[in-house]
C-alpha cells in the first residue's frame, strides 16, 4: 500500500468528505489540520473524514481529529470517521476515542448518518 500522504476533498455530497491516505504523523498532520480548519471556517460544521487509505496514525493525528471534532460540535455539527483497518482502529480503541467519534465502515454510511 502507498505510504505517501495524500488528502482529497469531495464537496459534491451533502456532507463534505475529506479523504486521507498514507501515513499521518507529526510531519503530515498539519496539512490535514489546515484542511479541516478551512472547512469549518467556511461554515461546514459537519464533516466526514475518510481514513480508509491510512496506513499509520500517531497521537499528533489524533490531536488534529479531536480538535476538528470540537470545532464541529461547537458549531452545532459533528465529525464522523470512516475506518475499517484494524491497525488504525486499534489506535482509537487504546486511546478511548472510539467512544468519542462516530465511526463508520463506509463513506456512504457515514454521510447518510451525518445528513
Amino acid at each position, binding site marked *: 500500500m502507498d505510504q505517501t500522504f495524500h488528502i482529497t476533498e469531495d464537496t459534491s455530497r451533502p456532507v463534505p468528505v475529506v479523504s486521507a491516505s498514507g501515513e499521518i504523523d507529526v*510531519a503530515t498532520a498539519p496539512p490535514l489540520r489546515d484542511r479541516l480548519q478551512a472547512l469549518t471556517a467556511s461554515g461546514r460544521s459537519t464533516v466526514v473524514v475518510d481514513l480508509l487509505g491510512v496506513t499509520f496514525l*500517531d497521537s499528533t493525528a489524533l490531536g488534529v481529529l479531536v480538535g476538528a471534532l470540537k470545532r464541529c460540535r461547537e458549531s452545532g455539527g459533528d465529525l464522523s470517521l470512516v475506518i475499517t483497518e484494524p491497525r488504525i482502529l486499534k489506535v482509537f480503541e487504546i*486511546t478511548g476515542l472510539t467512544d468519542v467519534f462516530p465511526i463508520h465502515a463506509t463513506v456512504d454510511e457515514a454521510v447518510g448518518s451525518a445528513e
Partner: protein
Amino acid sequence: MSTDGQAGVVAVDLAIPVKADLVVLARLTAATVAARAGFGVEDIEDLRLAVEELCLSLVRTDDDGRLNFAFEYVPDAITVKCCFEPQPGWDGAASGVVDDLSLRILDALVDEHGREQRDGKLCAWLRKRRAPSTV
C-alpha cells in the same frame, strides 16, 4: 549495527536532527530491528508507533538539536532509548510534557517505558517483549 560485549545483544545507533519529516527514520529503524529480532507483523507495527510516541514525548518539532537513539535487541525483547541533545547555544528546553494520548498509546503497546535525566539530557526509553509464538 553491532554485536556488543554482552552475549547475544545486538545494538543499532541512530542520530537524527529534530525535524518532523525525519522521525520516520526512527520508525523505519525500529521496524528493521524488530524484524531481525523475529518479531511478528503486529508487534513490529506496535513498535513503530511506540517509537514515534517516544519521540513526541521528548521534543517539539521546533526544538533545536538531535535525537540520539539506541536500539538493542536480545532474543526476546527490544529496548529503545532516545535522548534529546540540544544544539549548543540553544536556550530552549525539550518540551518535557508528555501528551496524554502519547502516554496511553505507550502504555498499551509496550511492556515498560519511562523517562529520565541522563548526563543532563532528557531521555525516554521503552521495552517490548516478543509475543509468544502461537504455532
